[in-house]
């Protein structure tokens, strides 16, 4: 645990200056017939250019809703959004829909999970990339836009891009479709790229290709990337910082290396313990997190994780009555847990670390 200070040089100290994206106390609630769904309930984070943030959580933890909220895609009457999303100093929540539309696709771009449903089956891949380009470059001629689309397809590694441009999405394989969608997202050189489960629908070998591609492109364009996934392996491959979400809240946030070496929150321990790993000796049994993820309509009182937490009894009843706040446990590493930091470190080293 102590050696987290001397992580290799390329995980440089956090860049100075203002963050490019700053999310402050973001809350996204939906009014439904069954009650108020608190999908995102007070999430804050910063992201600098050239850095990658990984958001991890189970289904229903609010990670996708967060990303759609940043993209400004929750503008229905039922969604109640509050907080601040500052992109380069400009608040996207206060900005009008027209302004957000201008930014979306140019400054902010998104890669969706399922490329077959995210692309229009009726238009060719090229037409869709060209449209994305021309919307934000109204002066560009069709020819220029087409040349740009070919260039982008080439960049993401699609063979014979000038010919494949006129193919329809169904003529592409899953991996190629995902590449085409990345090309579409990057066609306007966005400064912020959000990838929502970009490889979940893909095979491992293709997943490795796509993760490599995202990393190379980020190095080349220097954009900020948010990667949302349930797979801790994928975030470990890409992310500089990791945010763990549970029940609509951020329960832990920290640099990737220290989050994997010295995780602070019992939920993160649970996630790490329930995952079979190829790089470790075979365990006799996995250690699952008991119970099921909470309903976001009836979030458990106090700490949302307490019904599943094996250490809830050690907090003297605070876990059921008080919502824990995110506090700094180690430099740059925050966790929201009622257990005292010393107690947590003891439990982790004595009980958790040996079986990970």
């Amino acid at each position, binding site marked *: 645990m102590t050696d987290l200070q001397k992580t290799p040089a390329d995980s440089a100290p956090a860049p100075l200056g203002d963050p490019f994206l700053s999310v402050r106390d973001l809350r996204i609630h939906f009014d439904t017939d069954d009650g108020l769904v608190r999908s995102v309930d007070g999430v804050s984070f910063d992201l600098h250019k050239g850095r990658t943030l990984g958001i991890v959580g189970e289904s229903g933890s609010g990670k996708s809703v967060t990303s759609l909220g940043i993209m400004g895609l929750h503008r229905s009457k039922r969604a109640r959004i509050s907080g601040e999303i500052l992109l380069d100093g400009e608040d996207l929540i206060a900005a009008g829909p027209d302004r957000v539309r201008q930014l979306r696709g140019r400054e902010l771009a998104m890669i969706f999970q399922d490329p077959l449903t995210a692309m229009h089956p009726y238009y060719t891949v090229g037409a869709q990339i060209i449209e994305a380009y021309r919307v934000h470059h109204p002066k560009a001629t069709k020819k220029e836009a087409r040349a740009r689309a070919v260039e982008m397809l080439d960049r993401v590694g699609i063979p014979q891009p000038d010919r494949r441009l006129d193919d329809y999405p169904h003529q592409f394989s899953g991996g190629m479709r995902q590449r085409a969608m990345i090309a579409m997202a990057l066609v306007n050189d966005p400064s912020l790229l959000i990838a929502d489960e970009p490889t979940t629908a893909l095979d491992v070998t293709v*997943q490795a290709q796509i993760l490599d591609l995202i990393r190379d492109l980020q190095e080349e364009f220097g954009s900020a990337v948010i990667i949302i996934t349930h797979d*801790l392996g994928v975030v470990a*491959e890409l992310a500089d910082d990791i945010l763990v979400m549970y029940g609509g809240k951020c329960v832990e946030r920290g640099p990737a290396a220290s989050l*994997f070496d010295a995780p602070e929150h019992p939920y993160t321990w*649970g996630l790490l313990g329930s995952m079979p790993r*190829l*790089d470790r000796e075979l365990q006799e049994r996995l250690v699952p997190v008991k119970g*099921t993820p909470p309903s976001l309509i009836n979030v458990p009182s106090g700490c949302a994780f307490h019904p599943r937490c094996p250490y809830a009894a050690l907090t003297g009843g605070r876990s059921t009555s008080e919502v824990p706040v995110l506090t700094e446990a180690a430099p740059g590493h925050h966790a929201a847990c009622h257990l005292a930091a010393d107690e947590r470190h003891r439990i982790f080293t004595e009980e958790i670390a040996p079986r990970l």
Partner: protein
Amino acid sequence: MTDTQGATIPSPAPAPEREPLLKVTGLTRHFPIRGGLLRRQTGAVRAVDGIDFTVNAGETLGVVGESGCGKSTMGRLITRLDEPTGGKIQFEGTDITHLGVGAMRPLRRDIQMIFQDPYSSLNPRHTVGTIVSAPFRLQGVQPEGGVKKAVQDLLELCGLSPEHYNRYPHEFSGGQRQRIGIARALALKPKMIVADEPVSALDVSIQAQVVNLLDDLQQELGLTYLIIAHDLSVVRHVSDRVAVMYLGKIVEIADRDSLYRSPMHPYTNALMSAVPVPDPRRRQSGGRERILLKGDVPSPINPPSGCRFRTRCWKAQDVCASREPLLTALETGHQVACHFPERSEGNDGHSPENAPENQGS
């Protein structure tokens, strides 16, 4: 191989000595492609193209491969939900390859299936009680103590509450639904269960619960599993032996430990190196060289000549295009179909990564 202490429960009879529970030889399934005015057959999707393996009683065989490699089709053939084009399937010595629906019915008690998607494999209009008791109804079995009692016992066995008897599938979460599917598969006390991606639709924390449940049930009931999955780490956890499929063929089959410690087929190596490792330090120190396969899996309509993997293989030579490598045992219990396999002794330094994955900390 590991004959568990399944004798505590009387029903699953001990398997015949040394006779494998399931024996598959030369199994093929070609889906015809029809075209033209007369709907003549113009080609075939060779989904499963000649595979051989055996499963012994009480063991778990894991089958891995990318999507489209034919692993699910294989599962459906073994449970005879689909008609094989050729080859032979023997279950406890009986040839079940072309049995009709009626002749197959008594055997359905012994072979059951768990499906991937817990959302579409349960009828939304039926209660849990109806779903789990369906096998009793269909087979005309009167369990001791009545159907309701038997169903409630099954639910309890699978970690659900007996009060769930009258609820509908939509009232359950994904993990609970998968447990209902497992309870249904166990109703008739089968000898063998074919599970097609049993945990891939579930969240990580729930996935571990279901994996442990499958493990416990095997210990308790002496079940034999054939587990089909694409997740190599899950397969490593549950299997005794593992088969790797590529484009309708088995390219490598071995004991779990031997396969994961020293994979011999280049494809297996590539698959393993592609699995993301949840350890950021490894990425930062650049300690892990990964084999990046180029391109996509070729079409099973027109597979490459010779070795099917040669179009993406970094070791491919002329012989790979002309001669098809046969599945041969290079070590005891470790069969590989490759002209240039990686030797476990490490005499071949040609691969980008020679060190096996799991030796790192």
